[in-house]
């Protein structure tokens, strides 16, 4: 049983920031707001003030999205960068920033349905574009090289929206017990 202590949350936030830094191509003009964002997240965790952490989170996410330019996810190198440099750090940073007001009561449990669902959803988000590309390549081999960035954005956005809706709505009826 691992408790999400302040130290652990700060470690996770810094690890996420390090992952961002590793996979991004940061200029100085983006490094400064990125650093300010990380400091805000850490500050929010230390003083247990969620608004500060959330502000830092959104600054960091914007910086990360601007610094890592992804035009396609069909390429394995870019896919690895997007998963390890964006998806994973975003989730970790959001987790630590949102937990900033919690007073050591949060217990990390991996063998739960919620964690399994999150893992499944994350995996689905990660493999959506490669799988789509594979399907399109199988069906129309000539079209696989012509999938535009906008098409990939649309596919990923559709999958994200539909998955989120399904994941949120399923199990809604079971929440009425008290």
């Amino acid at each position, binding site marked *: 049983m691992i408790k999400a202590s302040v130290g652990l949350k700060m470690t996770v936030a810094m690890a996420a920031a390090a992952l961002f830094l590793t996979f991004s191509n940061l200029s100085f003009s983006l490094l400064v707001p990125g650093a300010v964002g990380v400091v805000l997240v850490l500050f929010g965790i230390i003083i247990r003030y969620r608004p500060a952490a959330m502000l830092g989170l959104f600054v960091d996410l914007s910086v990360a999205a601007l610094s890592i330019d992804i035009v396609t996810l069909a390429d394995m190198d870019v896919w690895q960068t997007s998963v390890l440099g964006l998806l994973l750090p975003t989730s970790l940073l959001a987790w630590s920033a949102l937990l900033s007001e919690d007073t050591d009561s949060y217990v990390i449990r991996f063998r739960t349905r919620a964690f399994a669902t999150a893992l499944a959803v994350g995996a689905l988000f990660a493999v959506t574009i490669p799988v789509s590309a594979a399907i399109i390549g199988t069906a129309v081999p000539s079209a696989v090289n012509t999938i535009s960035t906008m098409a990939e954005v649309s596919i990923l*956005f559709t999958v994200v929206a539909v998955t*989120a809706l399904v994941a949120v709505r399923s199990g809604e009826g079971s*929440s009425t*017990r*008290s």
Partner: protein
Amino acid sequence: METSPLGKMLLVFCAVFVLAAYLFMSLSWVVVCSGLVLIFVYSRRRFLSEVFHSQVKVSREVLDELAFAREPVAVKVEIANLNATPLQARFEDRLPHGCAVASGSNVAFAKVPPRSVWSFAYSFVAERRGRLAMDDVVIEQSDVFGLHTHRLEAPAKTTVAVHTRRESLSTAREVARREHFEYAGVTRTPAVALREFEHSGIREYAPGDKARDIHWKAFTRLGRLMTKTYKREGTLETMVLVDCSRSMRLSSHKVAKLDHATDLAIQLSRVLLSNFHKTGAAAFDETSVISMVESSLAKHQFERILIALRDIPGAVKVDDGAAVLEPGTSSPLLRTQSPTAVGKGDRGAFLDALKGITAHRNAGMQDIGLEGVIRDVITSRRGGEMLFVVISDLISSRDAVVSAASLCRRTGNRILVIQTYDDWYSKPSSCLDVAGAERLCCSMSGAVNTEATLRRAGASFIRIGPADTTARIVRSIRRGVA
């Protein structure tokens, strides 16, 4: 389950990121968005599981044994978290209508540790007398991420019987000390030791008479010894009956008839008990006896009466002029044809239902309500003379009171009807027009007719308004005004 403002903000940012992806033609914005959605889904599933497995037990305790109107009533709410995870929530103990928080707060934010009990206390002030039903405790649970909230109403029904104002009881004590409600005549009831004898006259001295009974002033005047004679002062067993019918419950101005009648019943009971009359009390409406205490001179009889009168329902505030009842009519009819015009919500339906019950009642249900009480009391007394003090506005229960008066006359008992006159409890209109004057005249005429009917039936009668105090009423009765 609802998404909190923070959760909504997160979703808005996701939408903005998707928009940015289209604007900048970059997939990284959507990937960032998917990371946020991932956390959102995780937090929701986790919170769903927590809510599903949460076991909360709520109990409420009213700490004051006797609650009085316009005085703080202390309440303690205990929340037991039976689950293995902490419960972070906002707890709100909803107050009944017409109540306000006096000290502390009925809303609390807390994190209840797993398998532990947490409590908070506050006090509230009830504006009016009556039975207050305190509803469920609202628990607004929020998840640790702050993205979702869940509203739960934990059952914790509590009924608080709020008594009339405490000043009414102190007034009763004062009045009982000053005023005497005497009954001239000998009854079969043995008099109480301290007030056993009343001077009735003098007679010739006879050997054996006690020296303290010799009338020395008469000796100087007549030149021979005279002895004072006494007769036993009677006590009269009394039942104070409060009418709680629908017309009594309606209140359109400052003082509700029912509240005044309750105060009057309390104070009259106190006066009667302090004068060693066996006293009981009962509250009745059109169909039933709400509460009843048999007449007695026992040690805690006044407390018993207080508890019984605490069950009298509270008055219903109606809009000015919305509900006008016709006094002196055989069946209580609303002047306004539509029952919904009486007030808001269920009040119209409530009055309509009671109207229906009253209509049925006239078709032969004679042994319920007031008559039922009087018949029961007379039957249990088996012949002893009794006084029934009925406090009523003679609108909804007019027929019942007239029948009760006839019953009392047939059985050799006395009845005193104290009418809380409806017009005197209504809000006076700023300018009296012809229609208003006619209405007042008609209602007074009806009231006079009712008074005449009751007097013919052998009842004593007194008409009171909100300014009439118990002391004044007792003095009026003693002077024979009634």
